[in-house]
């Protein structure tokens, strides 16, 4: 008798909660069905757009992106590597890398390299540096002055790219670019996925 009553009590509590959960799951599922294709399209669009700006291509229609796998000894800050084709011709590589040692957190950079390993352009996709101070080095002017058009050897001999007052961010940017170049070197040694 008592047990039966207890069970009835429990069911009285649990059942409504269960029904509410089901209702919410149902609502979320409907919403997900509507929004997930849009979100997916958005992501693809932003990725395409950043590739287009990095490689300065007018239209993204004939762009083809092939994800590359890199060897296990690649640095952990190398997030991803893609080979980019435009009109079926390889135009270069896109490296997604993290710069470590920044003033606040990490900076994530997209580094575009051409087929011979020269830097085409840089784009910062994530950072939280001090506005007006650390972020002074994360702009097109600083990139073009110190990095763009240069290969790995040229960067290693040119003066160390840093601004006073933003040393740490400069260091992080330098490490990010070096990681990208290192990733390129690894890929070119690797016969299967490499550019040679």
């Amino acid at each position, binding site marked *: 008798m008592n047990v039966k009553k207890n069970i009835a009590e429990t069911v009285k509590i649990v059942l409504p909660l269960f029904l509410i959960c089901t209702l919410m799951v149902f609502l979320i599922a409907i919403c997900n069905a509507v*929004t997930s294709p*849009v979100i997916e399209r958005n992501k693809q669009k932003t990725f395409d757009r950043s590739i287009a700006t990095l490689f300065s291509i007018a239209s993204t229609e004939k762009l083809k992106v092939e994800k590359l796998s890199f060897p296990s000894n690649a640095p952990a800050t190398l997030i991803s590597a893609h080979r980019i084709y435009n009109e079926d011709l390889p135009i270069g590589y896109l490296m997604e890398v993290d710069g470590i040692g920044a003033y606040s957190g990490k900076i994530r950079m997209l580094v575009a390299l051409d087929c011979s390993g020269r830097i085409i352009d840089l784009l910062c996709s994530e950072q939280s540096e001090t506005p007006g101070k650390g972020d002074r080095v994360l702009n097109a002017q600083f990139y073009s002055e110190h990095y763009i058009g240069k290969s790995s050897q040229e960067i290693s001999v040119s003066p160390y790219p840093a601004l006073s007052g933003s040393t740490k961010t400069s260091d992080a940017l330098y490490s990010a670019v070096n990681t990208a170049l290192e990733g390129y070197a690894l890929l070119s040694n690797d016969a299967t996925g490499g550019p040679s």
Partner: protein
Amino acid sequence: MNAKDILLQFKNGLFDRNPLLVQVLGVCASLAITTTVSNSLYMGLAVTAVLVCSNLLISLLRRFIPEQVRIAAYIVIISGFVTIVEMVMNAYMPSAAAKLGIFLPLIVVNCIILGRAEAFASKNTPLPSIIDGFAMGAGFTIALLLLGAIREILGSGSFFGIQLFGQSYTPIGILTSPPGAFMTLGCLIALIQYLKDRLQSKTKASADQTHKDVKNKEVEPNDL
């Protein structure tokens, strides 16, 4: 439900019981995201949307939800709506969603929403609950906008991302950092208390009649 009640509810939400400036609820997210006006606006709208939806559903289900597990039920409903709002924002306002970042899902633990569910929606019919959601949401949004405007104008010299002053202006950087947020919020709370005091002494002087309490059964949301 007449026009006077609705007006009273809005006065409560915007001024007398402003969720941020008087009840001081949901401070964490407010301090973190009010570095710019546009962030404040998006945050305020997202909170309002969740608040209205959850208030509506909770007041519809108020007889159905068992007393013992009501908080769990509220949290399930609130987190469901937050997920939905997050999905919608990710789909149709991706840049805004990216700016709010982690603070968008964190609306789940925003005390205002649970506070209103417990204090108002669970005891009132759907229509007043919706109005309460709008009123409280508007109060929260306006408070965020004030905070955001002060911090963005003085701290970065811009408004809605538009540079207001020339190159010669040096922004007061401390306002965009967390200590600046605390100081600005403190000043705003002081200001609204001053205004409330002024208003109270005025009404006392003009009429002896004591201020009529809110008609709807409302409990002070303590320790939420």
